[in-house]
């Protein structure tokens, strides 16, 4: 331990040379590309939304973060109460037709890259609730990245599903969900539609800024 510290100090001072330096670099440096590093970081700091729909919420956002199962081991313990800060939404339970627009709005408010996990039989397929009140599968109204079967799934199953999601994130899928699921062109806009042209003021400001930097 002490000798390693001394070698590191020597390296920083520039005293390490020749074969010793080669060996040090071989031991300490991992070469990768930026995308892989970024995806590794993303997969290990995935913030779930503090959000529960029904009985599965006891298993996923509640049990899984307790000391016995401890989702923090996989870097997903930071529950976010705002969808704008969250990376992952877990649909824990049946989605009623009255709740579906709310869930969709939460998903739309999350920032890319975002991940949706459908947990349990109900949110994946409607489960036992084949009736007037429940949406028959949450992927009818939003894209789902991962389905965890069970009624309810054990917390271990949720953890396993989460590691699968990590693998998916590390595999560098397209980061925007519309690209990922081939849904470009399905954007919905508020009344009036998107502004394709910048306003006169912002166009002026843009030109002024370009002049300022001499572009």
């Amino acid at each position, binding site marked *: 331990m002490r000798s390693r510290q001394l070698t590191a100090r020597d390296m920083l001072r520039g005293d390490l040379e020749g074969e010793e330096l080669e060996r040090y670099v071989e031991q300490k440096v991992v070469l990768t590309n930026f995308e892989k590093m970024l995806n590794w970081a993303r997969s290990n700091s995935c913030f779930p939304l503090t959000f529960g729909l029904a009985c599965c919420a006891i298993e996923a956002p509640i049990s899984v973060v307790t000391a016995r199962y401890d989702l923090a081991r996989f870097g997903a313990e930071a529950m976010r109460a705002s969808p704008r800060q969250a990376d992952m939404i877990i649909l824990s339970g049946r989605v009623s*037709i*009255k709740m579906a627009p709310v869930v969709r709005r939460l998903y739309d408010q999350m920032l890319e890259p975002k991940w949706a996990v459908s947990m349990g039989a109900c949110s994946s397929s*409607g489960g036992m*609730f*084949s*009736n*007037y*009140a*429940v949406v*028959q599968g949450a992927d009818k109204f939003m894209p789902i990245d991962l389905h965890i079967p069970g009624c309810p799934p054990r917390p271990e199953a949720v953890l396993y599903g989460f590691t699968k999601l990590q693998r998916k994130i590390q595999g560098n899928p397209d980061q925007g969900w519309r690209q990922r699921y081939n849904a470009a062109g399905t954007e919905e806009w508020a009344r009036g539609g998107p502004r394709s042209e910048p306003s006169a003021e912002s166009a002026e400001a843009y030109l002024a800024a370009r002049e300022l930097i001499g572009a």
Partner: protein
Amino acid sequence: MPDAPGLELIRGEIEQDHPGAILDTGFDHGAASLSIDPEHVLAVLTWLRDAPGQGYRFLSSLHAADYLPAEPRFAVHYELLNRDRVERLRVKALLADPGEDALPELDSCVELFPTAEFQEREVFDFFGIVFKGHPDLTRILLPEDYVGWPQRRDFPVGGEPVTFTYNERNYG
């Protein structure tokens, strides 16, 4: 709760003021019930609430049922409670189905029992029974733009057929 002779006494006293109001009396699973004509629902409820010696001042529940093959088809149940004597009495207003697009109608008892307001909205929401005189009769649990009355017996179960092997083999 009133026993069978007590129920007949109540029936007789109501019949004096409102002839034809009571259609039937009965004990179902140990609970006394009065089946009444929906025209007289307010009169009967007022009498049970205010008449000396009755005092059913608490409406513990209001709900509806659809007895589809039976006629009349619908019933609105008022579960009344006398909290001094801890006696319960069920009043059933029997409603006929008026046909295709029309909805069955009944007088609202919100003036008598304010607690009925949300419960009448719920009955309207799921059974499509209209309470005349209700201050705000809109859907309470289902989405506002929902079409249909899902707790009626002739409402389709909905959802999607599940492709079990049995279903595939027999109905493919």
